[in-house]
């Protein structure tokens, strides 16, 4: 435990080092998270569009069938 605390303290430079690494982690979280979320959003958008198109096509079929029957 003591050796871990000593390592974490970095001989008195711990606050500088960990602040720098925390900011770096924030930047990388934005990069990785933003990339994955953007991808997820666009796939969701594409899925919505495909469902809308399928619905529209089904409605078109129904209308055509109704007009043929009448």
């Amino acid at each position: 435990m003591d050796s871990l605390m000593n390592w974490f303290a970095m001989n008195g430079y711990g606050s500088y080092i960990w602040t720098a690494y925390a900011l770096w982690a924030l930047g990388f979280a934005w990069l990785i998270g933003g990339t994955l979320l953007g991808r997820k959003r666009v796939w969701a958008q594409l899925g919505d569009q495909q469902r809308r198109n399928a619905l529209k096509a089904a409605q078109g079929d129904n209308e055509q069938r109704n007009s043929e029957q009448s």
Partner: protein
Amino acid sequence: MASRFWTWLHKKGSPPVFYDMADRWAPWLGWLSLIAIAVGLFGGLVLAPTDYQQGDSYRIIYIHVPSAWMSMFVYMFMASMAAVGIVWRLKIADAMALTAAPIGAMFTAVALTSGAIWGKPTWGTYWVWDARLTSELILLFLYLGYIALYNAIEDERTAARAAGILALVGVVNIPIIHFSVEWWHSLHQGPIEINLTEKSSLQPSMLWPLLTTMAGFQMLFFWALLRRTQTLVLTKEIAAKWVKRLMESKA
């Protein structure tokens, strides 16, 4: 010969071909980058010895140096893509330049902040208007200017052209950043001389984690670039037949 090259270039730059290629490469790049960064940081923070002059504060270089290197590399990549977009009107090149800009801005911001934090215990101050620091700050403004200009113009082709010209003009800043420590009396230390065959200016036990982290940052950039460009291409080509086919194959 030349016409075959253009045909090849336009074929490789077509959105569906690019999308397939990115899908093949991105998973490898993503996982390898995470492994390299984890190994490099473990080596730098745990295994590398304490520096006899700077103590443990030097361990910030394991994020500072790769970020600073990437800030310049990404800018050159972005400017090259912008040039290809302007000269050969390749849409994928414009998309890649636009995608690279925020990633490059992030690397520059990390380089500036980590450098400032390292400066406090080493120089006694977070910031000085030194040639290296100032030119790196200008690089951040160039990235932000590129993004702002691209988004300010409605017509996509004009936006890509105008922002591309700004990116190309800004290339002049890259040698200034690199050579600033040699051209002017700078507070910033000189470049780390990396030599794989002869003696480097950094101990091998300190050098290998740095090189590993640099490789990891490089691969992470290409992973993010490919994935973000894929997203951008899908958004722009949402009504295209190949996107419909892609959706059907993924369903």
